[in-house]
Structures are given as structure tokens and as C-alpha cells.
């Protein structure tokens, strides 16, 4: 039986996906601003964050109304509560993109330290995780969400490797310290973005299976 309620749930899902695509674009643009030394694009990421913040509030508002008026149960309940959590994760992903854009504006004032290789690689992995987590959400595929969780280690590994490399730069030449710290900060932001994508994947598993796999020693 098709319920009127299903249309309201579909609307919530639609808004969440719109927010996800904006957050993903924010990360892509922040990286582009850094790699292509494009200050205008960095500013755009900063301004665009307002739209994402508003969507976060709208999604929470919509979800709270559905909880109050529909008293959802079972998968409906899991979907609505997780929609609120996922919108929070997306909002923070966008905030991390804004942080990266700020670092880009600082780095663009100084000469390029070295060609950027690891950071774009990290960004691609993190963005791939966001998209996969969201696809798992759209198509109700918990196995796809599990694969996202496993990829978090890749991002952590690149981050550690980058730290070692930048540390050696700073030891060799203290003039690079400011730029190295900014790049470390970008790497940290990307690492956090991957963590948020992992959280979304865990939330998708909860929506699909009703199992809370957070904070467990090994991921099943």
C-alpha cells in the first residue's frame, strides 16, 4: 500500500541528496582552489556554505515534524532519525571544505612548496567515500556501505605518510614551516571528511539492517 507518508519520506531523502551533492561539490571546489591557486573559487566555497547550513536546519525541521506527526516505527523511524544524523555529517563535511578553502587562500599567497600529489589523492578517496556512502543510502545497499568503512584506512595511511614527508621538509628548511602546517591542516581536514563519510556509511547500515556497528573493535 502506497502511503502519503512515503511521499514525505521521499521529500526528506531528496533534500538530503541535494545537500550531499552540495557538500561534495564544496570539497571538490576547495581542492581545486588549492591545486589551481584559484582565490575566487575559495571564496565561493565559503559563501556556498550558507546554503548547506540552511539545508541542515530544514532537514532537521522536516524530520522533527515527521517524528511528531507520524510517530514512525521500524525502518521509517530508522530512516528519519538517521536522516537527521546524516545531514549533520554533511554539514560538517562542508565545514571542512570551508577550512580547506581558507588554507588555500593562505597558501596561494606564497610560492608553491611542492607539486601536490598526495593531497588530491586523499581528496579523491574521501570524495569517493562520500559518494559511495550516499549511493548505499539511495539504493539501500549495506554491503556498499561496509566497503566505504574499509576505505577509511587508506585515507589515514596517506595522511600519516604526508605528515612524515612534511615533517622532514620543516626539519630541512624552517622557512617552509608555515606552508607545511597549512598543508598538514588540509590533510587533517580531508581525514575528517573521510571519517564523516564513514559515519554516514555506519548510519546507512543502521537504516538497512537495524544494527548499530559504531564503536566496535572490528567492523563486521
Amino acid at each position, binding site marked *: *500500500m502506497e*502511503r502519503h*507518508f512515503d511521499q514525505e519520506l521521499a521529500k526528506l531523502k531528496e533534500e538530503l541528496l541535494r545537500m550531499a551533492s552540495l557538500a561534495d561539490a564544496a570539497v571538490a571546489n576547495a581542492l581545486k582552489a588549492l591545486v589551481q591557486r584559484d582565490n575566487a573559487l575559495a571564496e565561493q566555497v565559503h559563501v556556498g556554505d550558507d546554503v548547506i547550513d540552511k539545508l541542515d536546519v530544514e532537514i532537521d525541521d522536516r524530520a522533527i515534524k515527521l517524528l511528531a506527526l507520524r510517530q514512525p*516505527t*521500524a*525502518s521509517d*523511524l*530508522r530512516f528519519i532519525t538517521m536522516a537527521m544524523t546524516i545531514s549533520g555529517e554533511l554539514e560538517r563535511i562542508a565545514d571542512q571544505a570551508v577550512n580547506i578553502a581558507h588554507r588555500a587562500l593562505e597558501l596561494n599567497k606564497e610560492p608553491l612548496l611542492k607539486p601536490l600529489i598526495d593531497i588530491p589523492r586523499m581528496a579523491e578517496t574521501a570524495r569517493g567515500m562520500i559518494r559511495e556512502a550516499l549511493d548505499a543510502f539511495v539504493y539501500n545497499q549495506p554491503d556498499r556501505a561496509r566497503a566505504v568503512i574499509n576505505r577509511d584506512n587508506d585515507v589515514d595511511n596517506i595522511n600519516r605518510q604526508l605528515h612524515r614527508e612534511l615533517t622532514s621538509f620543516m626539519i630541512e628548511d624552517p622557512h617552509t614551516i608555515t606552508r607545511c602546517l597549512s598543508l598538514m591542516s588540509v590533510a587533517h581536514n580531508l581525514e575528517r571528511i573521510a571519517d564523516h563519510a564513514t559515519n554516514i556509511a555506519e548510519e546507512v547500515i543502521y537504516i538497512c539492517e537495524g544494527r548499530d556497528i559504531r564503536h566496535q573493535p572490528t567492523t563486521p
Partner: protein
Amino acid sequence: MTALLERPMKTATPTHAAPPLDAQTTETAPPVPPSLADEEMVLEVRDFCLWYGAKQALFDLSLKFPKGKVTALIGPSGCGKSTLIRSINRLNDLIDSVRYSGDMLLNGASIFGKTVDVIELRKRTGMVFQKTNPFPMSIYENVIYSLRIDGENRKSILDETVERSLQRAALWDEVKDRLNESALQMSGGQQQRLCIARAIAAEPEVLLMDEPCSALDPIATGKVEELIYQLRGLYSVIIVTHNMQQAARVSDYTAFFYLGQLIEYDATDKIFTNPGKKQTEDYVTGRFG
């Protein structure tokens, strides 16, 4: 185990087979789900079948009800939940066409045994109905009705029972100054709480409730629900309700029935957040029923 039948079966086998169910329904829920493993049980239903004439209403029900807890029976109209609860105090005996097989054990003893006195059984299994049914007598006499049947006349015992039962039914403060007034003058919600007080005055082993709030307004419903919540620990409550949110609010365990079969039986929070069967999911989310 042999079926203990008070009423002889009119035909050896049912003429109607079970209605066709999809693959999921054929696998019925276990009588004691893992979440109930640590509970002490008050009532056990064993392989219970019931027919109204040729039509079979309950199919091989086996489940155990925990002591001191509230268990809700949910399911769409005609799923057999009221039939089951009315079998527990043998109200179905009053219907000529009803036959049953299987057994029910109240604290270990069959309720269908030859020596079982049905009046006595109904005291051990207090029942509250959808329509409030206070007797046309005073509030006081309503509460102690079962004690009067037993010939209890000691005023101190009767007074004590009235106060304790009305306290537990959350009605004492509202009626303590007018215990001798007619129960029929009370509001609907008060009448229902009086019926609960009357049922618990007999210290029943299980308290059966068949849609106890469906005739009440939201405020009275809230009071009765709060009362049911507070009765846990003191009484073992089995409640039939059409209102799923009510089942979610008041019960510890929930059994979902469909077409006379037990589909899923588990902790209430499990049933309402992550049911194990698709049919339960469809029912609690309002996709059918």
C-alpha cells in the same frame, strides 16, 4: 501431549484448511524469543487451535507470557488476538460453535482441566473490556465484588482491599469521599479504572485487557495507559490493542498476529525499531492492516 478439551470436538478434523499465506507466514515465531529468556513465565499457550464452527481462527499457537510484565497483542482485525485473550479466561466457552485443541497452562496448571472451576479461573484471570462495565452498585461494592462472591464480610479486609485496589488503579484520590455513590455516575475514564480496580482486587495471576482505551477520550486514555505502565511488577498484563503507539508506550513485549498465526514475538522496542519479519515491519509502519 494430549489436548485437554472441556467441550467435545464436533468433528475430528477441521473442514477448512488454513488460509493460504505467503512463504513468510508459514514459519511462526518461537514461543519464547531470546529476549524473554530470563523472564519467569506466568502463562503458557501450547499448540492452541480454535475454530468458530468450520472456520479456524487460531492456528497452533505456542507462546509464553512473562510474569509481572506487560505483553501487547497486536495485529490487523480478524487476526485472532481477541479470540486468544478470550480463550485465556474461557469466555469463548459461552459460544456454542467454538471448539479448540491444545492447552493453556496458568502457573503450570491447565485451565481446561476437568476439575477447573471456570468462575474461579476468571478470578485468577481478571479481564477489562473495551466497553466499561461497572456493575449498577456503589463504587465500594464494585471493587469488592469478587470478595463478596467468596463470602468475605470482614469490614477491615474489605476496606483495605478497596483502598489498595483503588490506589493501584490511580482512582483513590478522585473517589475516596464518594465510595458509596453509584459507579454509573462516574466518567468513562473513571469507570474503566474502576473496572481495573475491580479486576485487581481479586489479585489475578494475569490481567487481561481487550482494547481497554478504545472507548476513552485522549486524557482518560493517557491515565489508563499510565496505570497499565505502573501495574508492571505487580501484575502480569496481557493487552490487546489496535493502537500500535499504545502497544509501544505501555508494553514490555509485543506479539504480532496475522490470520490466526503468531508471526513475531519479541521485546517491544525491537518490534517497533527493528522487527525481524517483513510482515511485522509492514504492519507497524502502517503499510497494511
